[in-house]
């Protein structure tokens, strides 16, 4: 028995493959929606990706009501309220997020505001507070990392209060996730590498953290296999559609895993590093993953060792700790390769983190909810120790 009680939920319809985007209007129609608000950002528009979305609507019975393309890197209550006003003004009846985690989280926030008829998201912070049926939501990811298209989480900062608001609810799952290989082809190598390492971190933490369960385990392993087989190829040769689609699938599957098993110290410190020093989420994870795994060796060497056949290509002899260390070395080797290919940093000092901020980061990290799910206890001193080692 893996655990005394576990839950698993993922009500998202997944459509993945060649020209998958062409199905979007049909999926809208299935849910009774006909006028979409598109939530995207300037980078996605600049990469020419909205053209594919517009093309999908040609000749379809559905239409685009409005396109909002000013999503900032970290969504805020101000932006969410602004987009919700556009939704109402344009008489839209569903939301389509086209972008990375920033656009997807913003779209989730907009859906809360519209459904709950509120402009005060603070009231809904925490777990399982959203009870109303949300508006239909469709996601077309353009990065392969966050898995937010299949997760129950949204993180939105509150500008006035200066805090990050976290929402988790079964209602926050989008209805449909569409993976189309065209949508990630334009991602620059460094963003490809960093977001891919976010996916790998989701899969690894899902596998060894405390809420793991047999279903999330199998998803995590599949995501690890797909990531190891395709991430470096995507970074090296961005136009390889097959590898791009496989990475999009890896990211989605890792998202399904961690949405049900949560993450641990790596994400706790990565969230804090993002909050304090604005290091992109994927980069922070890429740097911290091997150090976070090492930190958990005492409690979880056996579980991490189970990943050796996937990371090392074969099971290797030795104790649990030896095999777990080989896994961690394989994570480091992948990081080194991605660093060579794309310049993705491997140390906090190379990611623009000033050394005198490490204590501030550790202070925020111990208050991150992910520490609950980490096998080993995380104190301020120990979080600081991990940060120093990763510096």
């Amino acid at each position, binding site marked *: 028995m893996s655990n005394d009680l576990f839950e698993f939920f993922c009500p998202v319809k997944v459509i993945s493959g060649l020209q998958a985007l062409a199905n979007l209007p049909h999926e809208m129609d299935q849910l009774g929606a006909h006028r979409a608000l598109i939530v995207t950002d300037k980078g996605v528009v600049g990469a020419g990706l909205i053209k594919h979305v517009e093309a999908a609507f040609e000749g379809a019975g559905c239409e685009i009501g409005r396109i909002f393309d000013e999503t900032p890197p970290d969504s805020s209550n101000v932006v969410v309220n602004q987009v919700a006003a556009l939704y109402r003004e344009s008489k839209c009846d569903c939301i389509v997020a086209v972008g990375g985690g920033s656009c997807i989280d913003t779209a989730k926030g907009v859906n809360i505001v519209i459904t709950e008829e509120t402009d005060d998201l603070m009231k809904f912070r925490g777990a399982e507070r959203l009870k109303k049926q949300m508006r239909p939501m469709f996601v077309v990811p353009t990065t392969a990392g966050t898995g937010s298209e299949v997760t129950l989480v949204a993180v939105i900062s509150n500008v006035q209060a200066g805090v990050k*608001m976290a929402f988790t609810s079964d209602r926050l799952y989008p209805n449909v996730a569409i993976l189309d290989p065209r949508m990630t082809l334009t991602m620059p190598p460094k963003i490809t590498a960093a977001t891919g390492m976010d996916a790998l971190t989701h899969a690894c933490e899902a596998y060894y953290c405390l809420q793991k369960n047999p279903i999330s385990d199998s998803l995590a392993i599949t995501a690890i296999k797909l990531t190891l087989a395709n991430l470096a190829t995507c970074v090296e040769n961005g136009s390889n559609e097959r590898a791009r689609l496989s990475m999009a699938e890896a990211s989605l599957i890792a998202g399904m895993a961690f949405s049900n098993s949560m993450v641990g110290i790596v994400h706790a410190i990565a969230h804090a590093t993002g909050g304090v020093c604005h290091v992109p989420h994927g980069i922070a994870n890429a740097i911290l993953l091997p150090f976070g795994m090492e930190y958990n060796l005492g409690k979880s060497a056996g579980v991490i060792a189970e990943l050796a056949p996937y990371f090392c290509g074969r099971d290797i002899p030795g104790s649990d700790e030896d095999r777990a260390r080989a896994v961690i070395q394989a994570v480091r080797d992948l990081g080194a390769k991605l660093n060579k290919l794309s310049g993705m940093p491997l140390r906090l000092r190379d990611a623009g983190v000033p050394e005198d901020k490490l204590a501030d980061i550790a202070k925020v990290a111990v208050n991150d909810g992910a520490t609950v799910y980490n096998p080993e206890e995380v104190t301020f001193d120990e979080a600081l120790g991990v940060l120093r080692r990763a510096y």
Partner: protein
Amino acid sequence: MTRLFLLRYSVKRKIAEIALLALGVTFEYLSRSCAALKKEIDGWEEGRVFALSVLPDGPAISLKKEGGAIRYLGRGLKQPNLTFYFKNIDSALMVFVGMMGAHTASVQHRTIVHGDIGTAMEALRAMNVVQTYLMPGFVLKSTFKRPPKLSIGELLLKAWVMLRLVPGLIAAASR
């Protein structure tokens, strides 16, 4: 232990009420006498109210940071900024009788938090300190990720907490 679940709801509810009361009065007492707890609550803003409750309709208690310490506000939800809910009485009992740690209850989806997660983490750490004084060592060993090691002074304080628990409960029952 699993016989506990065979008890009638009204009995389970009573046990949960007493356990919550014990937590409330001990929290209040230790917030003035225990250095580790004082350190934990030092950074909390004055007036912060947090509550523990069992769904769907209690029992519940509320606690408030006031004058640098914690005040037990009594039963029920007194406009808390943060509430920990147990999804049902059985899950609450598992934690209250020491079958399961608070973090395991979260991991197993037995509890949910309404409010800010950072504030919840601070409250959880503080409650762990309080549990250290309420639960016997062998329970702490099986329910904590890292069982605390108490100094002689802390062990004496724990003995004192135990001694004054019953009179404390009686006095607080009317609040």
